């Protein structure tokens, strides 16, 4: 195993802590680095340039950049805990920690010897759009032969195989000024915004403030860049209204200055040093009165043959590695540039002891500033030349310099192949306009700067510094300061007197001339190897030209056809070059070819950070009734009904669900059952027009309901379809209590409020939800009366004195209660409402007092069986939003005399009058076998004419089964169903179509138990037995 040493590290300088050594492992090799390093800088310090392989051709790839724009340096991070493996991390953004382990992605068996790279001749075939042109002849061959190969080859890292153990946080904050980016312009903005009283947030993606000041040799007011940054940072930290957010990337810019930022809270700490309970990452949601974008610029590479080898690096990145991390990324250096500014990198590396072999400038006439200094330093400058191609495999070994012909094309033969281990490239700078564009801002192409710059803003914001296309440091500082002060002023604060402009020492930025592709001479276009545009997706200049040739002229088409910009770097270095090449190909100016819109996120955001705390039990609230703990103690299984947890059934030891439900059913039919019905929606309706209101929202008549009485009602939407049902009681002269279904409670409340506030504001009606004011317990069964009498001693709540469909105030188990006589089971039933906080006490009392009566808790499943035996519907089960009241056999509930109610007019539309509408009926197995619980048709089964299911599809369907159960009382399976014209077909035999064949069934009345309603007031026999 090779022992790596930091022989790329300079003996002094840099913003690293040399007093500490950090051990890390890359592709199995142990190496050293220092605090302050990124994985990228540490790798370069150890002489490692080959970091990964590209997506399509598996070409060796190294580090092109030093920041988030780097396309190639993707690694999979491992930790002690395999659940924390992290694919596709950018080495340039991974803070080095002790014990870090990283591997190259998308390589097999190793990055040095990757079999994927052996595609050889096949590469030649794989031009743009290659996939679309083959394997279209046979779906089978494509899907079973070719597609699996493509899938296996694609993708970079591997997903974890275990759940993420980390925590993630969210914060919501508001501020007067949000400054994005803490480079010189952002810091200047912050400095002039603080101490005004305005709330300022400064977000910086890096762990250090300073931006380009950390990567260049600059002096401000006599301070070095890092020292000036430290001084400003100290001032900012001293101001309480300023929130500094380092390691925080603003990833999204949404409507009304709403921005989202990802803070990496503990990613830079070794696991054992992360404080307990701290989240791994935090997603900030920021609503800012004004935003200052100081997001800087990205340098772009040049496009030429084999421009992708490890050791080919952006000029500014090399400066960053040198100044910030004291890493000399190469000793024999060639610079290829189309602009003056990049000369500084050659000068810096020269000063640091590297040998600058050549500066190749595509322009004939460089500017007077930095190029002159380079010349003065004795560096070899070749103007009017380009680099045609390179040599090397795992690292660049040479650059072939060639002249340009009359058409500006690179000649196919090298004038000179300059040996080098570092080839610096600079194609100019692209302002980081991503957030500006996300905010809706329009971009403008600036010919002088050869870049898209912000144009018209649509939100309250300012762009400053390199983000605005400004290059000179002094101007960046001035723009920042002015924007900071302006932001403060707009927020209503006084920024105080402007600071004097600082004295700045920085080189002249100089000029640039576009060079989108050092395109080889006509007919020799492939002489120099592959000219890569997108280093991650392996798009070449040839691909772009081919796309244009094939008719893909929109830049969006070209991107999609060639996959330019579809990598994890989202084309930060590639998109503008692709556009330039397309522009040349189509012979149209860049503004006419267009740019792409930038969408969030600026850099990728961890899914779990998006989810924040909304994971596990916090995904959605579980609503619990006052009696919940009793159900748990009784061993209940729960059913999710909306957000509610409702007891489904209460299995005893050794019982399965069927046995438990059968026992509960028998208890209700033969003794007394107790049900927690607290989840039903309850609405207190008050006001002199309440009856009129009910008349309009329900299909039946409400004006004659007496105080103390209860009525069942159904409400429709305007389309005439049943929306909800429930009982409503008249509490007082102008007061009613409406109940709704559990799942629809909020929807009904919204529906009613909407009509009151927007359609009928003249109705004097007030609605208040009292769902959670009351705990509701139902007692049902022939012994319910006896139990009720015990609970409400001294009060006559017997069926004789307390008629069906009425309610009473009573003291039940010593608690003030409202008791309702309604029945969803067909048995004598009381619904006892007590204040929520007393629900537990009521439940306890019922079980205590009723123990000798066989009082049995029953769940929703038993409730469903019992109501289905009686033919009662459940909204959402017998209905799916396409049933009228008539379809459900509820015509008797639809007033013929009321002039109007919600949905009435819809009921007379032609389709509502069809005789073959699906109608609610009962269904019984034709050949009933007692005690055979297998004779329960599956719910959802379709109903067909006998024999129809044996014919080829499509098979006409008559309807389907909405509810189906085993009935202990009927000793039979039975079902409710919606069947076309069903009410006229009672007695007919139809087939239930099951996957394994038809089952004959007989259509019957939906009320299958106690049709005459004899049990509603308590079965005399049962009551007598109980007594």
């Amino acid at each position: 195993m090779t022992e790596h040493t930091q022989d790329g590290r300079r003996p002094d300088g840099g913003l690293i802590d040399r007093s500490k050594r950090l051990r890390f492992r890359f592709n199995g090799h142990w190496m050293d680095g220092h605090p302050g390093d990124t994985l990228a800088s540490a790798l370069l310090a150890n002489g490692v340039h080959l970091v990964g392989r590209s997506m399509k051709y598996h070409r060796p790839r190294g580090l092109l950049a030093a920041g988030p724009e780097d396309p190639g340096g993707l690694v999979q991070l491992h930790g002690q805990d395999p659940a924390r493996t992290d694919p596709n991390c950018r080495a340039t953004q991974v803070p080095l920690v002790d014990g870090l382990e990283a591997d190259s992605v998308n390589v097999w068996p190793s990055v040095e010897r990757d079999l994927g790279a052996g595609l050889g001749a096949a590469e030649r075939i794989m031009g743009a759009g290659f996939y679309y042109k083959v394997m279209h002849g046979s779906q089978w061959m494509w899907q079973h032969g070719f597609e699996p190969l493509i899938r296996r080859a694609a993708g970079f890292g591997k997903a974890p195989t275990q759940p993420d153990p980390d925590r993630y946080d969210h914060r919501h904050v508001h501020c007067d000024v949000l400054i994005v980016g803490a480079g010189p312009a952002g810091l200047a903005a912050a400095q002039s915004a603080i101490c005004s009283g305005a709330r300022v947030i400064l977000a910086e993606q890096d762990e250090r403030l300073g931006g380009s000041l950390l990567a260049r040799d600059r002096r401000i007011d006599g301070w070095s860049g890092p020292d000036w940054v430290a001084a400003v940072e100290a001032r900012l930290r001293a101001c309480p209204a300023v929130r500094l957010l380092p390691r925080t990337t603003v990833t999204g810019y949404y409507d009304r200055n709403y921005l989202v930022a990802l803070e990496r809270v503990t990613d830079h700490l070794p696991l054992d040093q992360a404080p307990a309970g701290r989240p791994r990452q935090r997603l900030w949601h920021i609503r800012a009165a004004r935003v200052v974008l100081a997001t800087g610029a990205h340098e772009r590479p040049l496009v030429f043959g084999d421009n992708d080898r490890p050791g080919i690096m952006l000029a500014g990145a090399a400066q960053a590695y040198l100044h910030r991390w004291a890493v000399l990324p190469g000793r024999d250096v060639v610079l290829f540039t189309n602009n003056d500014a990049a000369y500084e990198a050659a000068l810096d590396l020269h000063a640091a002891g590297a040998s600058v072999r050549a500066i190749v400038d595509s322009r004939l006439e460089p500017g007077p500033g930095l190029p002159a200094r380079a010349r003065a330093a004795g560096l070899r400058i070749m103007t009017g030349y380009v680099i045609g191609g390179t040599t090397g495999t795992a690292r660049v070994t040479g650059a072939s310099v060639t002249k340009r012909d009359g058409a500006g094309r690179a000649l196919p033969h090298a004038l000179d192949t300059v040996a080098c281990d570092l080839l610096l490239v600079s194609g100019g700078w692209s302002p980081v306009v991503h957030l500006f564009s996300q905010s809706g801002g329009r971009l403008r192409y600036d010919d002088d700067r050869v870049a898209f710059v912000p144009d018209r803003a649509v939100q309250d914001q300012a762009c400053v510094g390199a983000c605005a296309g400004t290059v000179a440091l002094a101007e960046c500082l001035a723009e920042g300061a002015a924007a900071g002060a302006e932001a403060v002023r707009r927020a209503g604060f006084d920024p105080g007197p402007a600071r004097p402009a600082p004295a700045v020492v920085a080189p002249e930025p100089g000029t640039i001339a576009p060079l989108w592709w050092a395109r080889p001479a006509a007919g020799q276009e492939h002489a120099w190897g592959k000219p890569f545009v997108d280093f991650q997706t392996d798009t070449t200049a040839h691909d772009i030209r081919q796309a244009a040739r094939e008719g893909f002229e929109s830049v969006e088409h070209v991107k999609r056809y060639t996959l330019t910009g579809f990598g994890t770097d989202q084309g930060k270095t590639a998109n503008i070059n692709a556009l330039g090449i397309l522009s040349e190909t189509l012979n149209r100016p860049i503004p006419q070819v267009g740019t792409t819109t930038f969408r969030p996120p600026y850099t990728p955001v961890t899914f779990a950070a998006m989810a924040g705390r909304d994971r596990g039990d916090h995904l959605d609230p579980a609503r619990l009734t006052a009696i919940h703990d009793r159900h748990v103690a009784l061993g209940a299984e729960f059913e999710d009904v909306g957000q509610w947890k409702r007891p489904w059934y209460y299995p005893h030891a050794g019982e399965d669900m069927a046995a438990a439900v059968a026992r509960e059913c028998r208890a209700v039919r033969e003794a007394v059952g107790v049900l927690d019905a607290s989840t039903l929606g309850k609405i207190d309706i008050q006001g002199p027009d309440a009856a009129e209101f009910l008349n309009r929202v329900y299909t039946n008549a409400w004006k004659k309901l007496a105080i103390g009485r209860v009525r069942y009602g159904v409400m429709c939407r305007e389309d005439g379809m049943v929306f909800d049902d429930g009982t409503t009681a008249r509490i007082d002269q102008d007061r009613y209590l409406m109940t709704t279904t559990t799942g629809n409670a909020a929807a009904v409340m919204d529906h009613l409020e909407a009509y009151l506030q927007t359609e009928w504001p003249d109705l004097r009606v007030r609605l208040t939800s009292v769902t959670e004011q009351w705990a509701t317990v139902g007692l049902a069964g022939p012994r319910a009366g006896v139990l009720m009498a015990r609970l409400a001693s001294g009060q006559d709540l017997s069926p004789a004195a307390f008629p069906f469909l009425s309610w009473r105030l009573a003291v039940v188990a010593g608690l003030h209660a409202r008791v309702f006589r309604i029945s969803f089971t067909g048995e004598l039933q009381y619904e006892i409402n007590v204040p929520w906080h007393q629900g537990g006490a009521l439940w306890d009392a019922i079980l205590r007092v009723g123990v000798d009566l066989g009082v049995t808790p029953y769940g929703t499943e038993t409730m469903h069986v019992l109501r289905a035996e009686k033919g009662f519907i459940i909204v959402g089960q017998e209905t799916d939003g396409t049933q009228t009241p008539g379809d459900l056999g509820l015509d008797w509930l639809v007033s013929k005399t009321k002039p109007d109610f919600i949905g009435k007019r819809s009921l007379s539309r032609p389709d509502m009058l069809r005789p073959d509408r699906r109608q609610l009926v009962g269904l019984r197995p034709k050949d009933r076998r007692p005690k055979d619980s297998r004779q329960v048709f599956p719910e959802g089964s379709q109903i067909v004419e006998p024999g129809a299911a044996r014919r080829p599809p499509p098979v006409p369907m008559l309807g389907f089964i909405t509810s189906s159960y085993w009935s202990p009382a009927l000793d039979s399976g039975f079902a409710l169903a919606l069947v076309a014209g069903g009410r006229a077909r009672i007695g007919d035999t139809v087939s239930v179509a099951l996957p394994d064949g038809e089952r004959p069934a007989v259509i019957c009345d939906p009320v299958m138990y106690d049709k005459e309603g004899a049990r509603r007031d308590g079965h005399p026999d049962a009551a007598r037995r109980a007594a």
Partner: protein
Amino acid sequence: MDTPTLPAALLEPSDPAAGPTAGFGAPGGPGGRWESPLYPLERAMAAASGPLVTLSSTLPRTALTLRATEGLLPEIGRLYGVTPPTTPNTWTASADGRRLALWLGPDEWLLVAPDGTAPALEAAIRETRANDGWLGVTDTSHTYTTLVLTGPRARLVLSKGCTLDLHPRAIGAGACVQTLLARTRVLLRFTDDGPDRADAIEVWVRNSFARYTVAWLLDAMTGIAAEPGDF
């Protein structure tokens, strides 16, 4: 402030069996007359509380949801001892601080009064109905579970799940807002009832959501000491 000339029934519990110490069991405990949904969580709430933030629940109080037109407010104020505020998102209190009126909407208030006074208060307010067919009053004493967050990082904890501007400059004692906390509707009442007139923020949540909200808050409080405390 109106001078309270209130019948005794509105000041003290009319039902002698009510009140925080009454009932079958201990106050707030299982089986009690006022069984808090939080009794299994009280210990965890205490354990999670510290100098930076505390989480507790309140003792029972009467709460009435009042629906009225503005013209009716003076009369209700005279009766109740405090006039319901017409400034949105604020609350007012009687001179002795025992009766509160929280703005819920342009025609809706929450009256908060000593435990056990609901029946008498409701009846008394209903008396004013003669003046206005728009009046509605509903006892909602048992609808909510009320939590209290105090401490210098109480607002920070809320800001993890609440989109409002919770900066003291934007919202302070005297404010009450209905909003979302995580995935639940809440009513936040801001007071300076904490030690040394520091924040004490009431979080009113409907009973069925109480455990979710507390579990969420406990999670949000985890590791709060390691977090920069600036707000």
